[in-house]
């Protein structure tokens, strides 16, 4: 890196961002001696630090009352026009100084200033601050402006707890569009504001928007300092090539809405990164429709944005939040509920289904609280057989080498012939078996409330070994390349080594009922301490964690670099598998303890609100929702054609995927 001016890495404001006082208000209280207008004094108080002190008189007409804002090359004062002797007429006085030493450059700056002032003087719009006067004294130029009582949007945003209501932001945006439309249709040439940002938009005491700081500052930006424009955050890419097309303002308005809604200051983010950090990442209550408007306004290519401020205004006007707002659909709420989705078939069991179905070779197997393990034909739901255990079944069956394995609350693991439902062997344990068995290499692995992980030979039903955990094992083991991974109710996650030894253990703060998902790099698992954990697969070191607002009993699935998992806070989360950052989340009306199933580009899951949901894996957009008559804690099994899922309404459903 070249040893450049260190300031080059930082944002530099070379003009005051807005004529506002320290408290962000224009109508700051004046001290008594300043508020008394008197005769102009002949002996002027000296400047302090180059600023005009209170009482200073300009042009023998404007008395300085206080400083509103200070910047590198300009200052804004609150002043009083003494020509109106009977009333106290307050104005804002903007002072510009040129640091240029070259007299020619100074002359040019002055000329530009006056020309700009003359254009401004011809403008007449309620959304544009009025210009009263302009003059030059020595090396300083002055602009006398309408004094707006109110606050700028940046100050309003800073003082707002939580998020600004969408209706308000949309109403301001519509008003800004109206002002821009006026400016852009100016004759003979359109006026491009070039600096739309929250601090340049004032809201008066009546809720009306006014644009301030009218691009005049631009004239005073020297070429060198102009390089800092890149850190401003609201400007479109083409502005770096010196292009000032009206669509520059469309982009900056999009950036302004983005900042107001998301509360993320674009000056602190990579330039032009709005699309990578959509508003709903921080503010899930934003409506999908507003997201689309902002997205379009922020297109990199000017041609892809709204063609005019009028067009953008029409889009904003059509939003539900512009028409009263109460029926605004927040992002993540079901936008389209395809209630017309009808099950391919459904099958009534004798009690609730909490277990998840397993599909194998044209059959679907599911256990129920009625103690039975059922086998049904996958394509039409025809009953094939059932096998009765002595307890309710919440464990999900697993099919391997012609056998179905399932655990029961009668403390036994059952191996049943997959074709006819006849018992092959049983493996009794000393605790209820809620864990779902997994099989590989002629062995089946499962946990028991007797605090052990079992490895059982599939032929003989003989226990090959058991591993003692710190608490009941309800989590289902994952059989990885190098180890078996499983959690327990004492909150410990284990990687068990070849010798049955612990390879590593990770202790969460609460029970781990969730089952791990494992990749080459990481183990992903949820805990009742509300966290989703990403652990280094070899060492168990905690790589990242993500906190939800409810217990994570749901088991994660991973696909294409995204981890999907439900939480008792009612959401399904999509997290970046590398970093644990939120990609999207989808809200339901009930706890999501069901584990999601990933099939192609779709994620399926159930919610305690009775719904079965299908959302787009990449975006979290709802594709369909199917309502059952009871909480859905069962996890779906998805094939290419159908999704199988049970509900507490006792039905097993086969839904078109």
């Amino acid at each position, binding site marked *: *890196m*070249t*040893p*450049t001016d*260190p300031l*080059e*890495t*930082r944002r530099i404001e070379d003009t005051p961002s807005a004529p506002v006082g320290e408290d962000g208000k224009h109508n700051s209280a004046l001290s008594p001696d300043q508020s008394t207008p008197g005769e102009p004094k002949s002996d002027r108080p000296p400047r302090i630090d180059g600023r005009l002190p209170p009482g200073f008189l300009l042009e023998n007409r404007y008395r300085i009352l206080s400083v509103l804002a200070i910047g590198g090359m300009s200052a804004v004062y609150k002043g009083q026009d003494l020509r109106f002797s009977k009333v106290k007429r307050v104005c804002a006085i903007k002072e510009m100084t040129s640091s240029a030493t070259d007299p020619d450059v100074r002359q040019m700056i002055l000329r530009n200033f006056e020309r700009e002032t003359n254009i401004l003087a011809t403008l007449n719009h309620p959304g544009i601050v009025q210009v009263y006067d302009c003059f030059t004294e020595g090396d300083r130029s002055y602009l006398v402006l309408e004094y707006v009582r109110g606050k700028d949007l940046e100050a309003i945003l800073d003082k707002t707890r939580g998020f600004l209501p969408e209706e308000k932001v949309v109403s301001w945006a519509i008003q800004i569009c109206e002002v821009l439309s006026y400016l852009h249709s100016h004759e003979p040439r359109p006026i491009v504001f070039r600096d739309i940002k929250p601090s340049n938009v004032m809201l008066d005491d009546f809720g009306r928007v006014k644009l301030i700081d009218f691009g005049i500052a631009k004239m005073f930006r020297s070429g060198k300092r102009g*390089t800092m424009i*890149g*850190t401003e955050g609201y400007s479109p*890419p*083409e502005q*770096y090539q010196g292009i000032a097309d009206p669509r520059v303002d469309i982009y900056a308005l999009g950036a302004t809405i983005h900042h107001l809604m998301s509360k993320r200051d674009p000056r*602190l*983010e*990579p*330039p*032009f990164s709005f699309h990578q950090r959509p508003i709903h990442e921080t503010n899930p209550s934003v409506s999908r429709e507003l997201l689309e408007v902002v997205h379009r306004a922020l297109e*990199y290519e000017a041609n892809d944005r709204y063609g005019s401020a009028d067009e953008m205004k029409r889009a904003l006007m059509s939003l539900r939040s512009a028409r009263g707002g109460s029926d605004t659909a927040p992002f993540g709420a079901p936008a389209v509920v395809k209630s017309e989705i009808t099950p391919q078939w459904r099958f009534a069991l004798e009690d609730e289904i909490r277990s998840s179905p397993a599909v194998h070779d044209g059959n679907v197997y599911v256990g129920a609280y009625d103690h039975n393990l059922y086998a049904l034909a996958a394509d039409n739901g025809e009953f094939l057989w059932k096998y009765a255990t002595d307890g309710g079944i919440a464990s999900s069956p697993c099919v391997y080498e012609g056998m179905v394995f399932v655990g029961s609350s009668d403390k036994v693991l059952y191996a049943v012939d997959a074709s006819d439902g006849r018992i092959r062997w049983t493996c009794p344990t000393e605790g209820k078996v809620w864990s779902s068995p997994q099989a*590989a*290499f*002629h*062995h089946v692995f499962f946990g028991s409330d007797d605090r052990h992980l079992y*490895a059982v030979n599939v032929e003989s039903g003989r226990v*090959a*070994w058991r591993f003692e955990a710190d608490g009941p094992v309800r989590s289902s083991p994952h*059989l990885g*390349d*190098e*180890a078996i991974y499983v959690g327990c109710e004492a909150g410990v996650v284990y*990687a068990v*080594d*070849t*010798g*049955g*030894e612990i*390879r*590593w*253990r*990770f*202790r969460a*703060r609460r029970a781990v009922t969730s089952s791990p998902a494992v990749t*080459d*790099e*990481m183990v992903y698992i949820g*805990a009742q301490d509300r966290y989703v954990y990403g*652990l*280094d697969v*070899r*060492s*168990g*070191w*905690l*790589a*990242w*964690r993500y906190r939800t607002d409810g217990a994570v009993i749901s088991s994660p699935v991973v696909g294409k670099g995204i981890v999907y998992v439900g939480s008792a806070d009612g959401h399904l989360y999509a997290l970046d598998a*590398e*970093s*644990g950052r939120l990609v999207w989340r989808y809200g339901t009306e009930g706890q999501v303890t069901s584990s999601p199933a990933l099939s192609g580009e779709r994620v399926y899951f159930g919610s305690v609100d009775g719904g079965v949901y299908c959302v787009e894996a990449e975006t979290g957009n709802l594709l369909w929702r199917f309502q059952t008559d009871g909480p859905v804690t069962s996890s779906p099994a998805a094939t290419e054609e159908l999704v199988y899922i049970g509900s507490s309404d006792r039905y097993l459903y086969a839904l078109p995927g």
Partner: protein
Amino acid sequence: MEFLRKLFCRDTRATATEDREGPQPTFTRPRMDVGWITDPGRVRDHNEDSALVITAGHDTHQAHPPFGLLVLADGMGGHRAGEVASSMAARVAAHHITHQSYLPSLLGPERDARHPALTEVLIDAVQAANQMVSEEVPGSGTTLTCALVLGTQAYIAHVGDSRAYAITEEGIEQITHDHSVVDRLVDTGQLTPEEAAVHPQKNVLYRAIGQSGALEVDTHVRKFDEGDYLLLCSDGLWGLVSEATVVDLIRGEDSLQEACRRMVAAANDAGGSDNITAVLWRSPLG
């Protein structure tokens, strides 16, 4: 499933219970292999780059993968403030990371959710460096790229325009993104990479250590196959030597230190207009 095959597909009389009573195998754990070098180049009279490397290993039956910490910082600011800033940033970050990650691991194989996650440790480390540099060396700035390597997996935190590259059988891949304005313009299609290389603002960063206020830190997690390389370098290398040449130089040398030396020589041959730093790690075998 390899170990399951080992476990269950051998002589059936053997069970894990019996295994435990058998002789314990000897362990030969992979070692961390790192080379690094920093050079002022041919034009500047002092070096504002800083490199810091820590490696550790422990031979045991438990999961205690070899640990490596690679840190690179490229400072800026007049009156030697740049070199003070880069050195301080590297040291503060390394102190934080070892204190929060490696040192606790020496107390046992159990990890605990009471400790922060590695990505949080890395982000906190960069922010601690930012705070220290902002307070102690005002007016200076520095890039900072930290890679914590555990076995074959790297956790990377980054601000600025120094770079982390992965060199694999498929070729070379830039892991980090430069926090420079021109890089964003290239990303959005407003500039070609050729235009960016000569752009007058190519050194303007929008994110670096030493900036006041909030600092957003990028993190990456990356698994390396055995024999793959991780390269951290300052713009004195990547700005002057092509990626293809870097790959050739690295693959042409078995010694990582020698590969670093040759990369620096190549940058000096191309003018050496800036300080040059390279830190090179190779994913351990087995």
